[in-house]
């Protein structure tokens, strides 16, 4: 239907944003408690050697029982805000990517915004699992450039220990807890390349909460003893491996091409820290030059879903593995199934 403005009505005023946006600051938080493979093996029939061979994971961190996704986010966000050199009241949007905030409502972002001493910004959560942070960076980039926001705080955070079945040999050793945050704001140069993203809902059950909350309610009211089962996350590892390494890996090349760079120009490759085997196979499959530093934070942090990309990127900066101002290709992929890749200039 074609619509024309009604005659004689005023024309709407719309903002004009800055031409470019970039990441101004990055921060990460890992909970204090280190959980070794030996501890994981108290509940599954496995070994440190098997877990390392299978996943590259040596240890992960678990949050305290009373430590929430908001607590972890606050710590990561404060570091990102400090690095950006802004004050919390300059933040106009808080966007949290998480699938482990245990309240169906309200969202976590407004509470985080309040904690940080912001000035009542727009605040909401997004559910894009392990691609959540990269989805968030894409949204933040668009919001800044469209003039909807000046500075956007993007947080990827998970407390996966609440949703991991410690008796499941296929997934118990994979997941960890943590938070990563970025401040996206206006820039004099292009700092966030086009995001190549998408979904594959046909494979929605490859990584999923075992049953919906309504299923849990049905269990709770059932008269069968022992019917109540916590809705842990379950994953079909083999299928996810194939999908990540072979089906969606071409997204990486598309993100490079869309940004007008080649893999030789990269200073870092930061894939979602799903499994070291996925990272290794992906590098081989896409033919990434051997001298490009690759994030391998999973060894000490495990798979922290939405938090993994910013945690790994922040670590590479802190340890001097990637330079400030360098080009990083970040690639999130996971439950949905969903994925997103983009080239960014590191803060």
């Amino acid at each position, binding site marked *: 239907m074609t619509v024309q403005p009604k005659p004689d009505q005023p024309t709407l005023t719309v903002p004009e944003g800055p031409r470019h946006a970039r990441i101004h600051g990055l921060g990460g938080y890992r909970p204090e408690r280190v959980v070794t493979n030996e501890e994981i093996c108290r509940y599954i029939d496995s070994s440190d050697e098997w877990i390392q061979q*299978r996943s590259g994971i040596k240890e992960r961190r678990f949050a305290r029982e009373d430590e929430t996704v908001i607590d972890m986010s606050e710590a990561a966000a404060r570091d990102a805000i400090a690095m950006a050199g802004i004050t919390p009241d300059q933040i106009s949007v808080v966007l949290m990517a998480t699938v482990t905030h245990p309240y169906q409502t309200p969202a976590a972002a407004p509470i985080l915004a309040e904690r940080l001493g912001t000035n009542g910004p727009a605040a909401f959560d997004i559910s894009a699992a392990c691609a959540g942070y990269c989805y968030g960076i894409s949204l933040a980039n668009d919001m800044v450039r469209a003039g909807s926001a000046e500075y956007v705080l993007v947080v990827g955070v998970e407390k996966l220990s609440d949703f991991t079945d410690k008796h499941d040999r296929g997934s118990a050793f994979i997941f960890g807890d943590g938070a990563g945050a970025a401040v996206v704001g206006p820039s004099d140069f292009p700092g966030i390349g086009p995001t190549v993203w998408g979904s594959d809902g046909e494979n929605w059950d490859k990584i999923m909460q075992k049953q919906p909350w309504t299923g849990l309610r049905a269990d709770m009211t059932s008269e069968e003893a022992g019917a109540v089962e916590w809705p842990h996350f379950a994953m*079909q590892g*083999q299928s996810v491996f194939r999908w990540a*390494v072979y089906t969606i890996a071409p997204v990486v090349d598309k993100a490079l091409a869309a940004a007008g760079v080649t893999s030789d120009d990269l200073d870092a490759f930061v894939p979602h820290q799903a499994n070291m*085997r996925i990272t290794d196979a992906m590098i081989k499959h896409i033919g990434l030059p051997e001298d490009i530093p690759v994030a391998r934070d999973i060894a000490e942090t495990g798979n922290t879903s939405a938090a993994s990309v910013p945690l790994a990127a922040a670590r590479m900066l802190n340890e001097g593995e990637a330079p400030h101002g360098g080009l990083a290709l970040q690639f999130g992929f996971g439950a949905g199934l969903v994925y997103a890749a983009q080239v960014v200039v590191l803060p």
Partner: protein
Amino acid sequence: MAMNEQEILAGLAEIVNEETGIEADAVQMDKSFQEDLDIDSLSMMQVVVNAEDKFGVRIPDDEVKNLTHVKDAVNFITNAQG
């Protein structure tokens, strides 16, 4: 053109060697991928995907768990080639 069993076995052995470093000669029809060749489920996926490319067949995820021995894979590929 469809390959015969020996050609498929040789092709499969080549893939196993490229993906895992296991000697191609060790890949025999009666060997178990996991027990004898020490190929875990993720390495098996790498073998499967490369086999799909090499032999022009489709091996669904659900089928992979049935391919416990080398002969299972060779038979599947033979039949899938029609």
